[in-house]
């Protein structure tokens, strides 16, 4: 990442006075460009709306925004809301964030309008946001709060002006309830604004490695012969949910890509099992809680077994310290391929940056959500 220096020129306004904010933005840039000898480049590739509620830890948010500003300069419209505030207030201020120039490059700056609202003034936000959008640039809504997917209030209004909504299902407070709500929304509203889930993005490495087994022609037949899949995961924290949503989404992905139809569910001391029907055969999907000490709500290991003759077992396993990911392929009783790759937990800001490159619907994700929600128990 390019070195980033956050440079702030803060001015405040006590009410949402759009012309005043526009004047402040102009003044801010004039001030920024005269402060720096080589001048600054003001750059925006998108409008990024960020909704932060008081229920969520936002201590790492500023750092994330600095990273995002450096990688994908944008006009950020950040909404801090406090539903529990005693007073109904709304204020706005304007900030610029600048990337420290390297070599012959110039200082690149982007702008942030921060709106703090509490009480009934929260409802004012959508009308304040709309005129501040840079025309013709895509609008992303990063919803860093409990998703109110059926809410026609502020969430619904912001979704209407967004091209893409980015949520993080790892932050769902009641994961199964919210997953089902999202699946219903996707199923019932095919023209809904595109949704990205950072929790889904965290599965990219796993999906790529699992898909990679079956890229090989000699292993491809094992895919239609899958008989048992075991997804080992660590329990999520702060919730009663026995299965992490990440594990459920991975199961949903396999089920939707491979056309499995759910038949029944069973729970036991070792975990939850779902039986699917696929082309006249039964496939067992087993969710097991890992005994290894890895961070909560993570995938630990995925094993895919094919009962054909010869049989095959493919597995992807995260190391306990989460620095490596190991793949193994055993076909016909002998281990054929084993590989160890570097692995790291990708920060939230980096995941978001990847989402800012996407505009269309991610149908594979949407189908995975619908399939995962069918595994409710």
């Amino acid at each position, binding site marked *: 990442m*390019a070195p980033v220096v956050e440079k702030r020129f803060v001015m405040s306004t006590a009410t949402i006075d759009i012309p005043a904010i526009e004047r402040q933005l102009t003044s801010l840039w004039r001030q920024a460009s005269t402060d720096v000898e080589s001048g600054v*480049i003001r*750059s925006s590739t998108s409008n990024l709306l960020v909704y932060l509620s008081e229920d969520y830890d936002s201590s790492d948010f500023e750092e994330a925004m600095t990273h995002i500003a450096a990688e994908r300069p944008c006009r950020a419209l950040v909404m801090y809301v406090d539903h529990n505030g005693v007073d109904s207030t709304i204020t706005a201020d304007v900030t610029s964030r600048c990337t420290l120039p390297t070599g012959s490059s110039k200082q*690149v700056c982007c702008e942030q309008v921060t709106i703090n609202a509490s009480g009934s003034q929260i409802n004012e936000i959508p009308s304040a946001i709309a005129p501040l959008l840079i025309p013709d640039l895509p609008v992303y809504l990063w919803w860093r709060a409990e998703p109110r997917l059926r809410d026609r209030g502020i969430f619904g209004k912001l979704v209407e002006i967004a091209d893409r909504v980015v949520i993080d299902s790892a932050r769902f407070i009641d994961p199964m309830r919210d997953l089902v709500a999202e699946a219903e929304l996707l199923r019932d509203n095919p023209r809904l604004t595109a949704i990205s889930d950072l929790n889904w993005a965290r599965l990219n490495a796993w999906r*790529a490695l699992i898909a990679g087994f079956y890229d*090989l022609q000699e292993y*491809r037949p094992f895919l*239609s012969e899958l008989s048992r899949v075991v997804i080992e995961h660590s329990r999520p924290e702060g919730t009663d949910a026995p299965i992490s949503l990440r594990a459920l989404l991975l199961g949903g992905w396999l089920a939707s890509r491979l056309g499995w139809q759910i038949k029944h569910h069973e729970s036991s001391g070792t975990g939850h099992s779902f039986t699917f029907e696929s082309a006249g055969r039964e496939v067992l999907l087993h969710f097991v809680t890992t005994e290894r000490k890895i961070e909560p709500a993570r995938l630990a290991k995925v094993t895919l077994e094919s009962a054909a003759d010869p049989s095959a077992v493919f597995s992807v396993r995260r190391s306990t310290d989460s620095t490596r990911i190991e793949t193994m392929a055993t076909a016909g009783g002998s281990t054929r*391929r084993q590989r160890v790759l570097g692995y790291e937990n990708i920060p939230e800001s980096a995941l978001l940056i990847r989402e800012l490159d996407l505009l269309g619907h991610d149908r594979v994700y949407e189908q995975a959500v619908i399939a995962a929600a069918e595994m409710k128990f």
Partner: protein
Amino acid sequence: MTRPQPPNAQSDDNPLREGVRLEKAAEPCAVVIFGASGDLTKRKLVPALYRLTQERLLPAEFAILGFARSPMSDDEFRNRMKDAVLTFSDAHEVDDAVWESFANGLFYVAGDVNEPAAYSKLKEVLQRVDRERGTSGNRVFYLSTSPALYSEAIQQLGASGLAQPEGQGWTRVIIEKPFGHDLQSAKQLNEEVAQVFSEDQVYRIDHYLGKETVQNLLVFRFANGIFEPIWNRRYIDHVQLTNAESIGVEGRGGYYDTAGVIRDMIQNHVFQVLSLVALEPPVNLGANAVRDEKIKAMQAVRMIPSEHVDEFVVRGQYGPGFIEGKRVPGYLEERDVKANSQTETFAALKLFFDNWRWAGVPFYLRSGKRMPKRVTEIAIHFRPAPLPLFKTVTEGQTMEPNVLVVRIQPDEGITLRVGAKVPGQVTRIRWVNMDFRYGSSFGISSPEAYERLLLDCILGDSTLYARRDMTERGWEIVMPILEAWSHSKAEIPNYESGSWGPKEAHELIERDGRRWRRL
């Protein structure tokens, strides 16, 4: 939305691949590097392949075989490559288990390129690697040796049967530049290659084509509706292509003295970029569709007759001077350069395309070493507005035309220069730049050119590689120049290090009433 239709698991496609970052999976393969003890292997090739592996863009069934004369065990080669990855990639530390897993796919075969026995040994090792690593008989042979050995290596690959795919596998060969020393040697090499490999197996690498901004030229021209209608002689006055380096020969004096800038840069890199500026829209983005249009454009380049070379081409050689405040030696003082060398380190050319789109539009190209700074850019100079409405308000200053600049390196981006009114009571015009900088819109670092090109070859996509006809056409265009220069002596050195070339280069463009862009 309903659940997806029943799977296509029975089909040839992998249903799990859809939506994964690289939708076309790289097939298992072994990359055999000829010249594995050389600089390119450690600086570029192995770091690029390591990174592609870590990015999960290469399959587990993958191996690298180093082939060179120096005796070395597999383990020694692995240790050297570990140092290379640590030194030349962005991986400043490598986890032991991760490295061991990658290194298990590294092998080394010591052998002489000229010796048939070495190829028998190589074949044996490849067959063993196929069994152990599952590389399925798919092979990429990367020729990174001295160019003098290309011909022998290709013939031996043919004679040993290694060039021919086994069973369901495929075989490809990547050939590093320089591709020949002149038209005759390029044709001969192409002929020798064609006797062993079919054209679709051959990948002639030009790392310029792996650069993000060069690839963006096609996107810029054909994904935007506004440029194509004005991308022709009606609206464009002339085009300038500058490829300047601030470095000298950097210890490559021996090679460079036999080459010069025409052979080293212009007939390959510069012409590749030029063809992307001049080509007609391809019918699709397939390798041959794009390359058909490139060669079609280059076939329209008007040949410069030997007897008129001085009217269209300027050569230069740098003398001592200053670069970034430091004194640097002249070319003749460089190590391994002949004392009376006439080799050109700078050239400026004026070319015309005799086709419907470009008739009468001059393309000025310049490329040189020891220029004030490193920069590669294409500047499209548009014709001025047809009516000088603002003549009275520009009294005393030149009415500048619009210029569109595509900057390839450094600070990649696109700039459009437009006239704008200076705020105030009177109408005055200032020329301002509208900038798009890659670095300011996309903060991510672009993949190394070699990563992109190696992956493309493994995926079987040759779009960004030079085709036989293009390499020969490049030589055809420059041969009259090289021939004319071989019969005449230039007064060299004729430009100071740290300057923009000899005064004749400025005269070349100024006598047409134009001037080089100040960079």
